[in-house]
């Protein structure tokens, strides 16, 4: 019962926070709400025994990526942004994509409901600790996908440098 209540609290708060984030006119305020949202996500991870993921969620998303967002937003002229209308001219295209992706998510949620439980159980995680479990999975079982993902990130970094540097000797 307690579990359901806690999950319910997290779910409701997260969804309402997400709505608040996208409806604020002042981007700075939506960033503050997004910060609270990240904390709730981390809390949810903690209830799933995924403590490492919770810590990483806060360090990487709240601590680094959101600060970068802030950094960019601070360079914008907020006073002008506040006066602009809320919707861009191209909003119908966005709406189509939103509807399509919503349909996709609903289909995948209902289609995948009880399949693929995975072979790592919570009791296993509790035995060795979440960090060890994640590390073993990442670097033993899924080493190749992990390396591929990091390669993609490397490509992005190189691309950013190419864009930032005007001429490369």
């Amino acid at each position, binding site marked *: 019962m307690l579990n359901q209540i806690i999950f319910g609290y997290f779910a409701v708060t997260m969804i309402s926070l997400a709505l608040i984030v996208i409806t604020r006119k002042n981007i700075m305020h939506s960033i*503050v709400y997004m910060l609270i949202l990240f904390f709730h996500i981390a809390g949810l991870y903690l209830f799933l025994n995924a*403590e490492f993921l919770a*810590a990483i969620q806060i*360090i990487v998303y*709240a601590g680094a990526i959101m*600060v970068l967002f*802030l*950094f960019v937003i*601070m360079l914008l002229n907020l006073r002008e942004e506040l006066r602009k209308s809320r919707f861009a001219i191209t909003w119908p295209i966005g709406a189509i994509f939103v509807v399509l992706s919503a349909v996709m998510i609903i289909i995948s949620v209902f289609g995948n409901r009880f399949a693929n439980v995975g072979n790592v159980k919570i009791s296993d995680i509790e035995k060795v*600790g979440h960090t060890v479990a994640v590390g073993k999975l990442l670097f033993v079982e899924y080493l190749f996908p992990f390396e591929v993902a990091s390669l993609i990130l490397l490509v992005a970094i190189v691309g950013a440098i190419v864009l930032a540097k005007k001429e490369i000797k």
Partner: protein
Amino acid sequence: MELLWEISIIVIKIVVVVSVVMFHVAYATYFERKVIGRMQMRMGPKEVGPLGILQPVADGIKSFFKEDIIPLNSDKPVFYLAPVISIMAAMSALAVIPFFDGFIISNINLGILFILAMSSLGAYGIVLAGWASNSKYAFLGGLRSAAQVISYEVSLGLSLVGVMLLAGSFNLNDIVEAQSSSVFGFYAIPQILGFFVFIVSAVAETNRPPFDLPEAESELVAGYFAEYSGFRFALFMAAEYIGMIIMSSLAVLCFLGGWTVPYYVLYLFPFLGAVPGVVWFILKLYACIFFYYWIRATLPRFRYDQLMALGWKLLIPLSLLNILITGIAKLII
């Protein structure tokens, strides 16, 4: 009943830790002014009480009763929120620091990661304060702080990876235990590279001189908290000093052996074993904090591009090298 007992123990622990730390924060300011004063052939505070010992009390009372000025065009909710975020992030990291064997508010497995997460959240207080004040100086301070914290957090985290590899744990208790049973008794010698990177990044992460660009007095008045006054200002100051205490205790726990003394010292001077662990911890902590003041009195402020170059071009490669060496050494041994 048992639950109530546990909760009350935790509450007592929190009260003890917070009061002791706040006392230390107050006297850290006094100590800093004294040390830097003497290093510049001045005297430091001397008027309030004998040897100026009541100076922090006077400062506290003054900041309580000062007028709380809020800029007219500031973003009020964010302006109110920013110092609270700052001090909350600093204070909550205290929860996972073991001050001596068995004394820790919350012994979680992710001690180091929790501290890193909280210290990165401290940047929000600074950035939001800089933005909400609606002042150019504060804004520039906030911008600088955002960039600085992001770049130095990387090297701070990476420099600790070597320690985590050697100890095989994120738990600060386990790290101290592993150190006391290691060859040198503490990790500062085998992790000398990591220790160096950690020191530099910790100074940068807490915005202390010579990396105090977000609050560079000569350029930005007071930087991100230029518009704050009264108690909110005091909150920012307290957050800075708590951050210093946390970084120092992280250095003590991860590199200097925490509350333990190396076994060879105990072998040479057996009577040192009678000294309680908390004394060792506090002595090492004071040494680290003194080091903060010492470099503040010695080094001039870095230029901004120098700061970024140091972070990205020297510290991050060094810490990666340290991880590589540690990993290989661990594989061989």
